[in-house]
C-alpha cells in the first residue's frame, strides 16, 4: 500500500515505523501535498509526540503551514466577498475555500493553491469588472490565452491580486464549455446553500459538492494532485454520510447533472484505495455510470498507477500520467479543437525555449 494511504487509513500503525519508512512517508506525503493531512491525522489521535524527532519536525512544520494557509484563505475570501458586495451577485465558493468556510473536515490540513468561485455566466463581466476595481488582474496576457479561456473554458483566465499576489479562479461552470459532459450550472447555483454567519457567501449542496469533487478528480489534467483530490472526496463522503437523504440523492443528482461516469469512478477508487464506507445499494445504483469493460480495465490500470505513486519516477507511472493528461484534454474539447490547442501550446513552448 502507498505509505501515505497507509498513514491516513491507520495513523496508529505508522507511529512505530522505522526511520527509512518515515523518510519514504514524508517524501511521498510532501509530493502528494498531503503532509499536513498526515500530520493532523496523527495529531488528532495524540500520536505526534510518539513520532521520532527527525520526521516530527516536518509534520509539525506542515501543520503550522496548513494553519497559516487556512487563515490566509479566510482573509482572502473576506476580501473577495467585500469586492463583490455592491454587485449583489451571490458568490458560490468551490473546493478548498468552500470546505473551509463551511467548516467541513475536508478542509483540515488541505494545501490551497488558489480560491475558486462560481458565478452565473451572465454575471461574469460585472464580476470581473468589480474584481479589477479592487486590484485583481488577469495573469495570462497573450491574446491566445485570453481567447482560449473566454471562448472555450469554464472560467475566466486566472486572476491575481496585484498587492497580495493571491490567485482567484472565477468559474461559470464546473467543466469547460467544450467538454462532452454538460452539467448545468444553473442547477448547481439554484441548489447552493447559504453559509451560517456569511450573508453573501454560498456553497454547493452536499451532493453537488461531491459530484464536483468527483468531476475535478476524473476530468482534470492535473493528475499530480489526484490522491489529494481522492482524500477530499473520501472526507466529504464520510461527513455527509450521516445526513439524511444524502446517499439516495447522490445517484439521482448525478443523472440530473450528466455526471454518472465521474461518480462511478470516484466511488470505485475511493472504496478501493481509501476504504471509504459506501452503502452497497449506492454502489449498485452508481453502476449506471460504468464504462465498457475494456475501458474500465484501462482506467483501472491508469488510475491505480497514478493514485498509488509508489514509484513516481517509474516509466510506467509517467506513461500513466501522460495518458491521463491526454485523456483529460480529450474530455475537455472536441478532437479538432484539441489538436489545434496542443499544437499552439507546443509551438509556444519552443518559442519560450528559444527566447
Amino acid at each position: 500500500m502507498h505509505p501515505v494511504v497507509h498513514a491516513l487509513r491507520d495513523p496508529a500503525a505508522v507511529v512505530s515505523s522505522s526511520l527509512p519508512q518515515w523518510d519514504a512517508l514524508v517524501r511521498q506525503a510532501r509530493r502528494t501535498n498531503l503532509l499536513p493531512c498526515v500530520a493532523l491525522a496523527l495529531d488528532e489521535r495524540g500520536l505526534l509526540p510518539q513520532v521520532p524527532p527527525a520526521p516530527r519536525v516536518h509534520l509539525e512544520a506542515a501543520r503550522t503551514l496548513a494553519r497559516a494557509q487556512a487563515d490566509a484563505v479566510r482573509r482572502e475570501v473576506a476580501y473577495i466577498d467585500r469586492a463583490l458586495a455592491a454587485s449583489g451577485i451571490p458568490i458560490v465558493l468551490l473546493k478548498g475555500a468552500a470546505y473551509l468556510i463551511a467548516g467541513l473536515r475536508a478542509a483540515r490540513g488541505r494545501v490551497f493553491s488558489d480560491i475558486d468561485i462560481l458565478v452565473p455566466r451572465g454575471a461574469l463581466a460585472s464580476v470581473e469588472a468589480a474584481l479589477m476595481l479592487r486590484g485583481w488582474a488577469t495573469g495570462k496576457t497573450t491574446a491566445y490565452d485570453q481567447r482560449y479561456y473566454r471562448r472555450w473554458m469554464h472560467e475566466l483566465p486566472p486572476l491575481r491580486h496585484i498587492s497580495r499576489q493571491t490567485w482567484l479562479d472565477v468559474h461559470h461552470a464546473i467543466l469547460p464549455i467544450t467538454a462532452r459532459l454538460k452539467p448545468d450550472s444553473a442547477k448547481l447555483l439554484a441548489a447552493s446553500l447559504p453559509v451560517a454567519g456569511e450573508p453573501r457567501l454560498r456553497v454547493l449542496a452536499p451532493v453537488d459538492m461531491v459530484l464536483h469533487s468527483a468531476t475535478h478528480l476524473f476530468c482534470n489534467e492535473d493528475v499530480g494532485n489526484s490522491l489529494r483530490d481522492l482524500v477530499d472526496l473520501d472526507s466529504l463522503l464520510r461527513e455527509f454520510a450521516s445526513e439524511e437523504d444524502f446517499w439516495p440523492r447522490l445517484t439521482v443528482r448525478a443523472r440530473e447533472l450528466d455526471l454518472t461516469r465521474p461518480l462511478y469512478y470516484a466511488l470505485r477508487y475511493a472504496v478501493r484505495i481509501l476504504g471509504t464506507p459506501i452503502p452497497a445499494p449506492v454502489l449498485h445504483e452508481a453502476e449506471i455510470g460504468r464504462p465498457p469493460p475494456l475501458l474500465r480495465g484501462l482506467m483501472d490500470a491508469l488510475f491505480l498507477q497514478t493514485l498509488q505513486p509508489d514509484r513516481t519516477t517509474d516509466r510506467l507511472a509517467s506513461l500513466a500520467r501522460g495518458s491521463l493528461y491526454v485523456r483529460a484534454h480529450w474530455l475537455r474539447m472536441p478532437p479538432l479543437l484539441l489538436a489545434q490547442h496542443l499544437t499552439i501550446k507546443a509551438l509556444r513552448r519552443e518559442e519560450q525555449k528559444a527566447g
Partner: protein
Amino acid sequence: MIVAHLSHQELMHRLARPGLRLRTGPVVNRIQSRLAKVVHGVELHYADCTIEDSEGFADFHVRVAPPRSPRRWIAPQVQFQFDGAGPFLPLPASQAFAMLEWGLNWCVSSHCHQYLIVHAASVERSGFALLLPGHPGSGKSTLCAGLVSRGWRLLSDELTLLDLATGHVVPLPRPVSLKNASIDVIRRFSPGMEVGPPVHDTVKGSVAHMRPPTDSVRRATEAARPRWIVLPRYEAGAAASLTPLSRARAFMHLADHAFNYDVHGRQGFELLAQVIDSSDCFEFHYGALEHAVAVFDDIARRA
C-alpha cells in the same frame, strides 16, 4: 565520519549512486549527482561536514543532473531535482555547484517552518549573534566572509534560523556565496580562507563560494543569542560608520526579510519583538573590510 575522510573516488561513487547523506546544521540532505563540478564543490566546501547513516532519515532528497533533452548535446544544462520534481528552470552545466547551493537554500526556506527563517547572514562572538539582514548587493555576504576570516564564527550566510522556542540562532554553516568584485576582495583580505573557482554569467553575475571554517562546522549545534541587528550597505570609498537604528525600523526590516513571517502569525511577531528587544540595532556603511571588522570587534569587546 566526515566528507574529508572519503577519498575522491569514494565520494564520487557515493554521490553517484546511493547519494551522500550530508549533515548541514540541523538538516540532513541526501545529495545525488554524477557531475564533476558537484563532486569537486562538495569535496572542497563540505569537507568538515558529517556524513549520516544511510539507514537514517534525510530531510531533503536532492539531485543535480542534466535534464533529459536533446539540448544536452549542444549546450549542456543542469537541473535541480527535489523529491523527483524540478522546482526550477535548468541552468548552464557550468553552474552545477551554485545550483546545488541555491537548491539547498530553497529546501530550507520553503519547508523548515519549525524556525522563523530570515534572509540574513549571521556570525557569533562570545556566544552573541550578529545578524546582517540585507538586500542582494548590500555587501552582507562580503562582510560575513570578512568577519568569519577574522575570528567570528559562521552561523549562516543566507538563512538565519531562529528557534521559535528560545529565539536563538540555530547555526546552518554552509559555504558563503561571494559575488562579482567581492570574490577578489575576500581572496585578498582572507588569504587563509578557501574560495572555490568562480562561475560566470549566472543570474547573480560571477559567483564563487568560500568554504566555512572547520571550527564553525564543528560547533554547528551551539546556538547563539541575537545581540546585534545590523543593516549593512557597502559603498566604494565610504568610511566605516555605525548609526543607531530605531527598533521599529529594525523590526520592519527583519519582518521584511523573513521568508516565513506570515506562516507564524502572532508567534512570529512575538519572536521578532523578543529578538529586537535583546539586540542593539544599527545601520552600517562601509567601504573597506579592514575598518568594518575593527568596528565589529570593538562592539563585541564592549558587549
